[in-house]
């Protein structure tokens, strides 16, 4: 199918299927996460359409689209303000189970991920193990047909909304730190498991700490081989890095900035769009965003040609997040004091609260604050540069 025909088809579907509330939820996103409940409604719409897992192999429920089509789909969803689907199950656990899971695990979990029956969160980081994951200490000790888990996981996104968690746990203290780690699946309603919300700087809760106090998990929940969870985790991390199209995020950011620049005034009663200094700064970032967009296409091209685009994936993570942050800064400069208003109830989709101040600035400060984490999570900007130095430049 011609790409433009496909794009039309996607647009038609979006026009028809996205409710005002869903679009509002997309518009009001202040981080990579949308309102959980509305996003889940959207998840179900996509599920029924058969479009929930474009990145999966078709035999497991994927769409069979080309890379280009998947990109178009993502782009159109984002620009139509579809709320982001909470995607750890779809984007991380699913591909991993397809690669490492037993037939039973695939048969049981994959359909539940597709339908939205299970929402998965991720238990990797620990208070003492952030970028240095290999030093994790949360331990799973074998006891008959179970493991007993003790310890805690932190920075677990939307744990409060999830019914399952996939975890890295220590099953052995021998050998290199990486050698004794296993990958395991846990029910959130297990006895001894508790969730403590972490309030973010914008006043909302997206992250949690998860505590394990003698949590008993059946041994069949292990994925892959015991003590070889590190390979599973690495597979997932690479998937996480390569999978995101930052250029699409940037387009949404630029569209928003253009709306602001067409309604707000800088000093001297000049619309921001006519402020030459601002225009130069905006163009500077926009040019980097354009260069990154073409780089993402190169990555995709290399991937499609069967090559490994690993190196460029670290690059797109670093540049993608840093460019996004620069857009946030421009937006804050433009909204000025109007971005000070903290009105959390006006950020909930479906709310009846009248926003105070210009509506185009409602999310500005929260986005600016929340997006600082983009260069921290998923391998900090410093770690990514270390990786590039070592693996690409062989330094």
């Amino acid at each position: 199918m011609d790409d433009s025909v496909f794009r039309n088809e996607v647009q038609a579907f979006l026009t028809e299927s996205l409710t005002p509330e869903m679009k509002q939820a997309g518009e009001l996103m202040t981080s990579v996460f949308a309102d959980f409940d509305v996003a889940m409604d959207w998840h179900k719409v996509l599920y029924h359409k058969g479009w929930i897992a474009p990145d999966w192999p078709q035999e497991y429920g994927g769409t069979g689209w080309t890379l280009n089509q998947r990109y178009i789909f993502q782009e159109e969803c984002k620009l139509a303000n579809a709320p982001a689907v909470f995607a750890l199950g779809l984007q991380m656990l699913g591909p991993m189970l397809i690669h490492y899971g037993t037939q039973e695990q695939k048969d049981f979990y994959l359909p539940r991920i597709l339908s939205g029956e299970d929402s998965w969160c991720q238990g990797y980081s620990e208070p003492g193990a952030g970028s240095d994951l290999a030093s994790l200490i949360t331990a799973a000790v074998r006891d008959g047909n179970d493991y007993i888990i003790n310890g805690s996981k932190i920075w677990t996104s939307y744990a409060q909304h999830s019914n399952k968690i996939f975890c890295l746990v220590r099953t052995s203290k021998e050998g290199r730190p990486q050698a004794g780690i296993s990958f395991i699946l846990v029910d959130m309603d297990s006895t001894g498991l508790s969730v403590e919300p972490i309030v973010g700087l914008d006043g909302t809760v997206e992250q949690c700490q998860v505590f394990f106090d003698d949590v008993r998990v059946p041994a069949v929940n292990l994925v892959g081989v015991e003590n070889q969870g590190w390979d599973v985790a690495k597979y997932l991390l690479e998937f996480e890095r390569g999978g995101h199209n930052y250029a699409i995020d940037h387009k949404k950011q630029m569209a928003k900035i253009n709306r602001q620049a067409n309604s707000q005034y800088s000093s001297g009663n000049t619309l921001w769009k006519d402020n030459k200094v601002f225009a130069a700064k905006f163009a500077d970032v926009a040019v980097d965003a354009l260069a990154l967009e073409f780089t993402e296409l190169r990555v995709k091209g290399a991937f499609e040609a069967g090559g490994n685009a690993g190196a460029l994936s670290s690059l797109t993570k670093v540049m993608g997040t840093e460019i996004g942050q620069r857009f946030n800064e421009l937006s804050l400069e433009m909204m000025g004091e109007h971005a000070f208003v903290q009105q959390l109830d006006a950020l909930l989709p479906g709310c009846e609260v009248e926003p105070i101040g210009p509506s185009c600035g409602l999310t500005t400060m929260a986005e600016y604050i929340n997006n600082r984490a983009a260069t921290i999570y998923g391998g900090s900007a410093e770690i990514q540069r270390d990786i590039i130095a070592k693996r690409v430049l062989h330094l």
Partner: protein
Amino acid sequence: MFIEYSEEQSMLRDSADRYLRDNYSFESRQAAIKEVRGFSADHWQTFADLGWLAMTFPEEYGGFGGGALETMILCEQFGKYLVREPYLESVVLVGGLIEAGADRALKEKYLSGLIAGELQGALAYLEEGSVADPTRVQATAEHSNNGFAISGKKTVVLNGPEADFFVVSARVGGKKESARDGISLFVIRKDAPGLSCNNYITYDGRSACELQLHKVAVDKESLVGDLGNAAAIAGPVFSHGIVAVCAEALGAMDALLAATIDYTKQRKQFGQSISAFQVLRHRMVDMYMEIELTRSLLMATAWKLDNAAPDADQCVAALKAKMGKAGRYVSHNAMQLHGGIGTTDEFSVGHYFKRLAAIGVMFGSRDSHLSRYSKLSV
């Protein structure tokens, strides 16, 4: 020229530091934010008792006759301890304008109350669509019998919810909504008929409101400054305000750098303190250099304002521009080097971050001050 503090100035700094260290812990601040909107009346009363609120007012009205240097000294400590009490809003801006432009009766009426900590003021000058441009005024003051009737809408009135009275800008002449001339300032009591507030909190833990004015009647004596010439008094007061927020930013940046050094020494990764990583060390050095450059500019600017130096305005513009860059660099990297913990509400780093984000755009963005610096340099 401006290197040495006088003995009084050193005492002021030390006493502020001591009081805040003992009574203004981050934990107590956060608890207070959850309890009461805006600020703590107890702290404010203590500030008054310690004489801080009187520091910059003339002796004839009960003040101590200090200037920008005293403001700088106090606000630097406020920044270091994340003080959220409205010293800037009530004392520097509203107090400063009344002192500069009100007639004697109005001064006597309000200054003593401000100094005693009994009255709170708020400046209402920002309007929709504009960023920190005090000349973009659409609110109007029409002559009516024996005074004026004021109508319009003011956004982002900091400290508005706690204020007993407002100083409001309105246009008495000049058709253009962004003309510099034709703007006047008026004192308006909170309970004036026709005035209504839409209160809210701000991301940096303070309070503000939108102010609606519908034919609010004020008498002639409420005029602050000459009719249609608010700029004459607002310019110097805003300069003073810029010194205040930049000093506050400096204190905040000092606190962030200290916290970052501590944290990176304690935090272990890959078997060593992360402060051992050269990239992080140099990042902290760059933070340090940005802070020291800002400090130099701040000290010089405060001194030049107090001594009416011919290049004082130029220094004010330079200072705000430099602070914008430094504040962003320091706060971003403090958060980056703290990692996840810095993004949480329970840790102080993010609250300094948010305050620096706010100060960065207050009184105009970095670019607008660079442009002003260019014009003044010709």
